[in-house]
């Protein structure tokens, strides 16, 4: 995989030839203004529905192995 990644990066490196001085970066393509909605409480998903899909639910939470094992 190392060889493949190098090949891809070599191709990508072609953008280093471009003169991009003073060009603004684009992170989002359409002009959007942030709009805040009223902070009104509304129903969320039930905890049981969500935990039902977890590999190891316990006591109403997601159980994971100890980080210090």
């Amino acid at each position: 995989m190392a060889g493949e990644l190098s090949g891809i990066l070599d191709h990508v490196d072609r953008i280093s030839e471009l003169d991009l001085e003073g060009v603004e970066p684009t992170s989002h393509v359409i002009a959007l203004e942030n709009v805040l909605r009223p902070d009104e409480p509304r129903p969320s998903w039930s905890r049981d529905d969500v935990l039902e899909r977890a590999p190891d639910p316990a006591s109403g939470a997601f159980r994971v192995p100890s980080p210090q094992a």
Partner: protein
Amino acid sequence: MNQELIELTVAEAAERVRSGELGADEYLAAYREAAAGDSLNALLWRAEEGSQADLEGTRASQDEVDPDRPLAGIPVAVKDIFCTEGIPTTAGSRILEGYRPPYTATAVRRLRDAGARVLGKANMDEFAMGSSNENSGYGPALNPWDSGRVPGGSSGGSAAAVAGRLAPCAIGTDTGGSIRQPAALCGIVGMKPTYGAVSRYGMIAFASSLDQCGPLTRNVTDAALLLQAMEGRDACDSTSVGIEGGIDLPSREDLKGLSFGVPRELAGEAEGIESGVREIFERTVALIEELGGEVSETELPHAPHGISAYYVLAPAEASANLARFDGVRYGLRVESEDLTEMYEETRARGFGPEVKRRIMLGTYALSSGYYEAYYGRAQRVRTKIAEDFAKAFERFDFVVTPTSPTVAFKLGERTDDPLAMYLSDYCTVPMPLAGIPAISIPAGLAQPDGGGSDLPVGFQIAGPAFSDSAMLDAAFALEGAIAFQRNGAGGTA
């Protein structure tokens, strides 16, 4: 199997359901039978009558179908990247095997609200990363024109299902060409709407600034019908804006008064375009002129750098988006005594090679020493590509290119060379980078370079942001003049 029902377009079937001439259940039954005979591995899950998933997931099919809704009784193949409540949703990945989401994506919900039903979940490249469907964790979907060839990707299952008559229509997602390229390789219509037209809520994220949902259909009118139902602002996706005025059904008979630019970088001078593809492209450009459209050459000087920018930006976004698959809240967990080891083992086993490759590329491009050289520069190239299009649209209404440089390639042909696979998207990557809409329509058949049987060739039309309706209208007129014969040389029908 009721072949007559299978041959109806979405518009025709919906009209018959509306008039009472066709029962919605009879129509669905015909497609369930067709989908049950899937020999293309196009569908990863199928709605079987009376099953639990059917009851939960295709709720609309249990209700009385309101014949006045625009998609009354229409079965849809849904790319497996869209969350569907109670129905398995894998995004083509083993890491989500058996996952049944607690909610439904807005795009799917809107189709249901319009009367449509979920027929099945379509195969795809894992997390939409690929151009051939060979990166699916569940085996590749096959091209209905030649089962030794790929259907394209990443929405390959959606395209194969529609072209192979397993579904009347499908939805997919397009990040760098993932709707348009498979549509081209399978001989159907595929459209990537303007970024923001359709909500991304419930669409498993690959590269959030590029991903957009769109239709794959047998004709342009059907694509308009599906987009009409799906577009719109959604409170659950702050980047969704919808299309002002909505989508009109296309009706244009000629192209008088419209101008089309042919960018030399993506058509005339481009390397790697097969001679058969080039011939069909030129013939289609001549048809535009016959229909009264004005055609001349234009330039998109930065478009050839699209692939480079894309393969920095999309993996960078993916590397962040895919961090959520960690064995904690859903999907696969490989048990371990230690938390870090659990993360590593889960991700090592759950993700396929292409996903790992892109996570590594993305994290590398975002790492502190290389951020400006890769991510920063790629974002500036993106600006230049968008400016190139804006300049072209000052003079032209639309820009046209071949959709894919080649016809459908053989299974295994590009799997050993990721860069060759990436270059499959050469003509489709610049549009999502600029956020603009583009559609691929089948334009004819051509032999691959090196010979072989005739295969479909796609023709791409791109327009300015939010010109979706006008673009569909122009595509409709051109489609009428092309008169593509779907059963000519292939198809399973």
